């Protein structure tokens, strides 16, 4: 059998968008192309990257998770309330992560056991998590006595060899998730879930169990993100996660992860999140106001989708030609 040749069209559209905006900003945005700015883009995108990993895996398994932004907020608030009550740091962080995990688990149960469409289940969770976070925090940022938690300050604002500690944490978590994904059954089962659920069922694997695992993983990532966000901004703001689900879902999709395709890759998803962070960074360096940023982000996404569709068509035509030659 012929080994699959690599084609340019296999690349997710994030690669093309990223290259284009990167070159454009390097040329026309003064101060974009500098080590300092790159470092700030990377630091800004640590938490979106965590979320995008969870969401990408959910999308690959033919699901969808719209709740990650507000679950992140809720986790941050529960962790912040524990800190406010002067609980041990480790316990507070654990509670934060567990909150996210529970939300994810409930999403999974709604999808796998109650057979709700993922869009609806996670939309409902979005409302519930936002309602809970605002009720618990009384709609105000939760502050704690910073002096009591030097370790948390170290994680949030300290550096190791010039690298922010919280970024090291984030990258570590990402590395673990990527390792687990590519080295265990998770990947095969997720691909099969996305490609054809029935096949997974027929091969004796519990579909419900794996769906719950996938959603729980996504919730856990949101939980970790919430705790890291607390450490970084030194308070738990009940609006901090609003809109992050947008970045996560769009990042995963332009990174080449689509529902019902039976494939996908995590590095593309991370690049997708980086692309969005780069666009935001570049536009604000060019002093575009928020309104222009909104319009342009929407437009760039549509253009990215056009590129993907074109590349799929070119690929299709090429395959047809190859088949003709073979015949």
């Amino acid at each position, binding site marked *: 059998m012929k080994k699959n040749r690599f084609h340019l069209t296999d690349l997710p559209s994030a690669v093309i968008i990223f290259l284009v905006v990167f070159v454009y900003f390097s040329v026309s945005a003064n101060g974009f192309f500098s080590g300092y700015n790159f470092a700030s883009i990377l630091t800004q995108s640590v938490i979106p990257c965590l979320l995008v990993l969870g969401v990408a895996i959910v999308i690959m398994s033919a699901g*969808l998770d719209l709740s990650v932004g507000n679950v992140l907020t809720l986790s941050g608030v529960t962790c912040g309330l524990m800190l406010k009550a002067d609980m041990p740091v480790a316990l507070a962080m654990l509670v934060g992560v567990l909150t996210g995990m529970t939300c994810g688990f409930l999403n999974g149960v*709604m999808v796998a056991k*109650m*057979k*709700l*469409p993922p*869009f*609806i*289940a996670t*939309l*409902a*969770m*979005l*409302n*519930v998590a*936002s*309602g*809970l976070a*605002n*009720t618990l925090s009384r*709609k105000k940022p939760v502050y704690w006595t910073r002096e009591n938690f030097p370790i948390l300050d170290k994680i949030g604002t300290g550096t190791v060899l010039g690298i922010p500690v919280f970024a090291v944490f984030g990258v570590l978590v990402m590395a673990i998730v990527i390792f687990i994904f590519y080295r265990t059954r998770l990947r095969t089962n997720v691909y099969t879930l996305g490609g054809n659920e029935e096949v997974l069922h027929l091969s004796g694997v519990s579909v419900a169990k794996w769906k719950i695992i996938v959603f729980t993983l996504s919730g856990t990532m949101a939980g970790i993100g919430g705790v890291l966000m607390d450490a970084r901004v030194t308070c738990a703001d009940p609006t901090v996660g609003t809109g992050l689900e*947008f970045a996560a*879902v*769009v990042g995963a*999709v332009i990174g080449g992860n*689509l*529902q019902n395709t039976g494939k996908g890759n995590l590095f593309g998803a991370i690049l997708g999140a980086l692309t969005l962070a780069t666009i935001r960074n570049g536009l604000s360096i060019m002093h575009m106001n*928020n*309104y*222009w*940023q*909104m*319009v*342009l*982000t*929407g*437009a760039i*996404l*549509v253009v990215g*989708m*056009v590129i993907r*569709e074109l590349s*799929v068509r070119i690929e299709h035509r090429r395959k047809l030609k190859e088949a003709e030659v073979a015949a």
Partner: protein
Amino acid sequence: MKERIVDAVLKNALLLLLIAGVLIFALFNPGYLTVSNMTVIMKQASLLGLLGIAQMTIMLTGNIDLSIGSTIALSTILWCGMIKNTDIPSAVPMILITLSGAGLGCLTGLITTKLNIPPFITTFATNYAYRGIAWLLVGSTIIYNLPPSFRFIGTDDFLGVPITIWLLVIIGAIILVLLKKTTLGRRMYFTGSNRKAARYSGIHTDRIIITAYMIGNAIAAFTGVLYAARLNAAEASIGANFSLDSIAVCLIGGCAITGGKGGVWGTVIGAIIVTAIKNGMNYAQVSSELQTLVLGVLIVIAVFFNQQVDKIQRK
């Protein structure tokens, strides 16, 4: 006989749920079940019902529109600009705005169908883009003091009934006839329940979906104008929750997110249920954050319930 009763209960489950909810709220709050409060609920429900109908026409074809709120923001601002700066007969801007809504819907539909993008992603993006344009046009200024000759449509009564309720009845009837009695309507249901089969049987499914987006966004733009007329103000951030609210109304009213299921009746009752519950919670002084939570739980219960009803009916 027993089967008949079960069938009748299941068919009118939504209505029974609404009555039960109203009775429970009335039990705890004597002020709830009064003519004046019911009028308030119906007035609010009329606009939410129009939004629900707009979302429903799109959801029927197996699509979704998260940008309805932004369409509303953009069109109300255009409307305000038109009526503030010129003196034209009040019907003209109304018609132009409805058309511009249809135009925005056409664009959304074209992007989704011709580029093969999942609708929730397209409308995520257009949601950003349309609202961004609205921000660009007026920034954070609030337009207020609209001329009364344009506002009557959202505030006045006709034959003792608010005009918005008349409009809900008229537009609801038009859409009802469109869905049940015309080829286009049947094709919309068919496209939603099985797009592939519809395409193989010779239906231009892309065209049907684009039409659905156009109808939906035209109704949404029209509703936006009613909102602005009632509030006597418009701003670029108007209707940030409208998309999710309209989806909730459709789901509670028995639409399936996969398409092909749902109708005008269910959607209108869904809108009344949501408004009645929100109003009841306001009476009980439940905070708006907790109301969000309740809405989320309500969506899950409603969709789960609708699925179970479907299962029983199929047996």
